[in-house]
């Protein structure tokens, strides 16, 4: 149950930081910034969905995590790590060709990793794990 709350707290903090950044920034937002905000919202939505699943399981008297959900997480972590290596290679390759500041490139990489993790989780969780 505690871990379910933790996901909600972290998601809330990320959302609050994004809203603060959006409201306090005096620069004009470019389309790229709006895409970044959209991805952050997607990642927060994903975290809230995971937290809700844990919370509802705990409410029904089931464990918040069991052997299948742990296995899904382990496989998701391994897939997303492997894919992220190629993501960073691609970012390094394109960094010479696209004019973006360093912090924007690093931000894109981190957001990309979060998106890769979310997509990997969806594929593995709904596809199932067999013979492992």
């Amino acid at each position: 149950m505690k871990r379910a709350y933790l996901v909600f707290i972290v998601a809330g903090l990320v959302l609050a930081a994004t809203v603060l950044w959006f409201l306090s920034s005096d620069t004009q937002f470019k389309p790229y910034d709006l895409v970044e905000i959209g991805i952050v919202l997607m990642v927060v939505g994903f975290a809230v969905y995971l937290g809700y699943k844990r919370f509802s399981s705990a409410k029904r008297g089931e464990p918040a995590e069991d052997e299948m959900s742990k296995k899904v997480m382990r496989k998701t972590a391994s897939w997303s790590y492997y894919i992220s290596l190629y993501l960073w290679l691609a970012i390094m390759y394109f960094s010479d060709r696209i004019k973006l500041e360093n912090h924007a490139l690093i931000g894109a990489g981190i957001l990309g990793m979060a998106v890769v993790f979310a997509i990997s989780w969806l594929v593995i969780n709904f596809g199932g794990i067999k013979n492992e």
Partner: protein
Amino acid sequence: MNNRIREYRARLDLTQDDLARKVNVRRETIVFLEKNKYNPSLKLAHDIARVFGVTIEEIFIFVP
């Protein structure tokens, strides 16, 4: 690997929720097991067989 969890669950008139609580996993895991989308650990297979009062081999059928 195929299994006969749904059949045995129906015999004992257990819901997926009931079985999940008895073997201490989430209902989602039982759903995936019944759809043959997840192969359980030996411990979970043992726990399920014990709930149904049969051997593991009667529930889980290995298909090479």
